[in-house]
Every structure is written in C-alpha cells, then in structure tokens.
C-alpha cells in the first residue's frame, strides 16, 4: 500500500515536472516566431501547445534512454526517482523565477543522478549512458545547431540577397509558421519523453514494469497532456530573453534558426539522445544571427545563459540529493514524499505569488 502511494506521488510529481518543462522550455520554441512577428503571441502559444502534444507520440527512444541507460532502475526505489524529480522541478522554478533559460532535461537527469548518489552511491549510476547519451550530446548538439544555422543563413543570403526585401520577408514569415510548427513537434518529441522516462523509471524501480518493458500508453498520453498544458500556460520571461534580446533577427534568420533547431532535435530524438532543447535552439539562434555583430550587453546575456547551463547538472543533483535526505528523514514509507511534496507546493505557490507581486525579473538590456 505504502509503495503504491509513493508511486502515485512519483507519477504526479513527474507530470508536474512535465508541466514545468513546457512552462519553462517551450517558450524558447516560439521566441523566434515572435521576434520576427511571424505569429501573434496568442496564436503561437496555442499552435505550439497542440503540436507539442502531437510530437509526444512520434518516438519513444529518448524515454527508453532516461528509463534504462542513465540509472540502473533495479538498484533504486521510487522514492529516489521522486527526490530526483523534485530536484529538477526546484531548479526549473529557480531559473524560471530569475528568467534564466537553463535546461529542464539536464535538471531532470542531474536531479535523478544526485538522488541516486545520495541513496545508493555510484553503483546505480550508469557512467557510459550518462556520458555517452547525455553529456557528450549536450556539448555537441548546440554546436551542430550553431554550425547549421551559420552555414544555412550564408546560403540563404546568397540565394535571396538580390531580391526585393518585401516579398522575401513575407515568404520567410510564412515559412516560419510551418517551421515553428515543426520545431514544436520536435520539442514535444524530445521533451515529453523525459517525463515518460522518469515515470517508466519509477514503474520499473517499483517492480510494476519489467526492465526493458515498453512505455505504457497512459504514460505517453499523460506526459503529452502535461507538456502541452505547461506550454499553454506560457513562459513569457524566457521568450523575451531568447527570442528578442540575445539576437534581433530578420525573418530569414528566424526561419533558419527554427530549421536548424528542428533538424538537430529530431535527429537526436531518433537515436535517443535526451537533449536540452533550450541549448539547441539557442545555438541555432546564435548561428543564424552570427552574421550580425552582437553588442557587449547581448554577449553578457549569452554568458549568463551559458553559466546557467553549466551549473544546472550539479545544482539539480545537489537539490535531488537534499530532497532524498529530507524524504528519508521521515522513514522509508509514504510519509516522506507526502511531506516533501507539501513543502514543495507551498514554496512554489510562494514563488508564484512573490513573482506576481514584483513583476518580471529580467533587467533591461
């Protein structure tokens, strides 16, 4: 009975993570469309939410990587997954509060690795999966997106450079509507699977599923709903930072950034790499904007974003480990997860209330 209560709490917490993932990350997906005025904010949010939902159904490779290749599910309990997800949610909300676009994906993996280290030491952390499937792609993917964005925009300007700007801008804005949709599908494909992976990891750890079992359909549907609702709820602070402040783009650059981001995320989803879509999109935006000189203030923002990425894994790991310690302080039953959940909900509500009173956290520039 106690195990079942813990499992229900883990599933609910993982879905809450999926919601915050949509809330936190997906704004980046529509930032480029808003920056170039290809879509209105209201339409972009609704359109992206629907396509995020659809994207969740096209692949399960990333979910399999999260559930099987990073942590040995047989060596942990659902409480460990719970603490890891709490670490990820806490880090997502901290970075949301300060308007920093860090990676939800790395927060989840960092949180679960941290809680696993606190619970059972290094024995249950699969180093080859962590390095080969997460850390190396995390470094390579934004660079590839930057490269594609930079090479493609050079070719685009060669092709349309001599044409009248009016029709060209209209053409690329139309293209952004379609490519923005593809980017939303790509984001849904990679990011919704992280929630699916966390739930599946908990189900395996609980003995409800056998190791190597397929992700249950109810998990796919619930993760898709969670990320779509999170997206719809919006993350306007982060939109402003990525889409409008780091690089001011024209429509061709916006289209190119979306295309480069989509290509990298979809190709990585195909082979099962759980990428930070935030990092990939930012790399693509930087690549497509590389033809324009960035002001020192803009480079300063980019540096802040890079620093947020660097600290995400260790910070989420530390919070995940602390959450595990707090949970175990109440014993091995369901009481610990219940108490930690209540504390987390109170802190989240307080953060939202404080942010609502004080307005947007992003300084001008």
């Amino acid at each position, binding site marked *: 009975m106690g195990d079942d209560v813990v499992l229900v709490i883990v599933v609910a917490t993982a879905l809450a993570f999926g919601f915050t993932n949509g809330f936190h990350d997906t704004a980046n997906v529509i930032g480029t469309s808003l920056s170039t005025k290809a879509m209105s904010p209201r339409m972009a949010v609704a359109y992206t939410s629907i396509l995020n939902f659809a994207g969740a159904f096209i692949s*399960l490779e990333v979910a399999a990587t999260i559930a099987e290749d990073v942590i040995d599910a047989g060596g942990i309990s659902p409480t460990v997954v719970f603490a890891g997800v709490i670490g990820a949610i806490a880090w997502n909300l901290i970075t949301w509060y300060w308007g920093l676009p860090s990676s939800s994906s790395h927060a989840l993996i960092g949180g679960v690795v941290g809680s696993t280290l606190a619970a059972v030491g290094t024995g249950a952390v699969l180093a080859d999966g962590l390095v080969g499937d997460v850390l190396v792609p995390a470094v390579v993917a934004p660079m590839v997106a930057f490269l594609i964005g930079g090479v493609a925009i050079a*070719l685009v300007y060669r092709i349309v450079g001599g*044409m009248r700007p009016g029709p060209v801008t209209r053409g690329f804005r139309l293209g952004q509507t379609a490519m923005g949709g593809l980017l939303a599908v790509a984001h849904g494909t990679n990011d919704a699977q992280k929630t699916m992976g966390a739930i599946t990891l908990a189900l395996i750890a609980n003995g409800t599923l056998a190791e190597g079992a397929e992700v249950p359909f109810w998990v796919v549907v619930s993760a898709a709903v969670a990320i779509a609702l999170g997206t719809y709820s919006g993350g306007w602070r982060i939109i402003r930072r990525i889409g409008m402040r780091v690089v001011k783009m024209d429509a061709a650059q916006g289209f190119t950034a979306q295309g480069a981001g989509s290509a990298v995320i979809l190709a990585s989803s195909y082979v099962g790499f759980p990428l930070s879509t935030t990092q990939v999109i930012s790399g693509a935006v930087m690549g497509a904007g590389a033809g324009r000189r960035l002001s020192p203030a803009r480079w300063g923002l980019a540096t802040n974003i890079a620093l947020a990425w660097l600290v995400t894994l260790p910070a989420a790991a530390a919070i995940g480990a602390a959450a595990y310690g707090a949970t175990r302080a109440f014993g091995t039953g369901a009481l610990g997860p219940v108490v930690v959940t209540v504390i987390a909900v109170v802190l989240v509500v307080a953060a939202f209330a404080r942010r609502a009173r004080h307005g947007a956290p992003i300084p001008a520039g």
Partner: protein
Amino acid sequence: MRALVSLVDMDALVESVAAAVVAGVGVIVAFSLAVYGAARFADERRTGASGSATFAAAVTLVALAACAIAVGVGIVIIVSDRV
C-alpha cells in the same frame, strides 16, 4: 580522450549529426529557393515576362515539394523506428 570515446556510441552520434546537417541545411536552402522563385515570379509577371515567370513558379513548386517530402520522410522514419 580514448576513454571518453569508448563511452560514446559514435555510430549514433555521427548518424544524428550527419542527418541533422544534411536535412537542416537542405530544407532551409530548398525553402529559400522557393522564396526566391516566388519573389522572382511576382517581379517577372509585373514586367510581362511570361516565360521567366513560369520558370520561377516551377522553381517555387519544386522547392516546396522537396521541403514537404524531406520533412515527411524524416517524420515517417522516426515514427517507423518507434520502439
């Protein structure tokens, strides 16, 4: 460095990078040709050059078809490989 390489599934990494570069640059360039063709079509039609306008329209249609096929094939490949 060798130890790091031994932890990475190089085949999957190279496959994903190659697919992303080819598909990403290819679709973006194809759509740019479509935009070029559409803009050129409008200009040529205004000046009454019907032959050039027809060619520009054909470039647009072929380029848009190439984009749609590339995206469609990509999605089908991902879906068909679903575990």
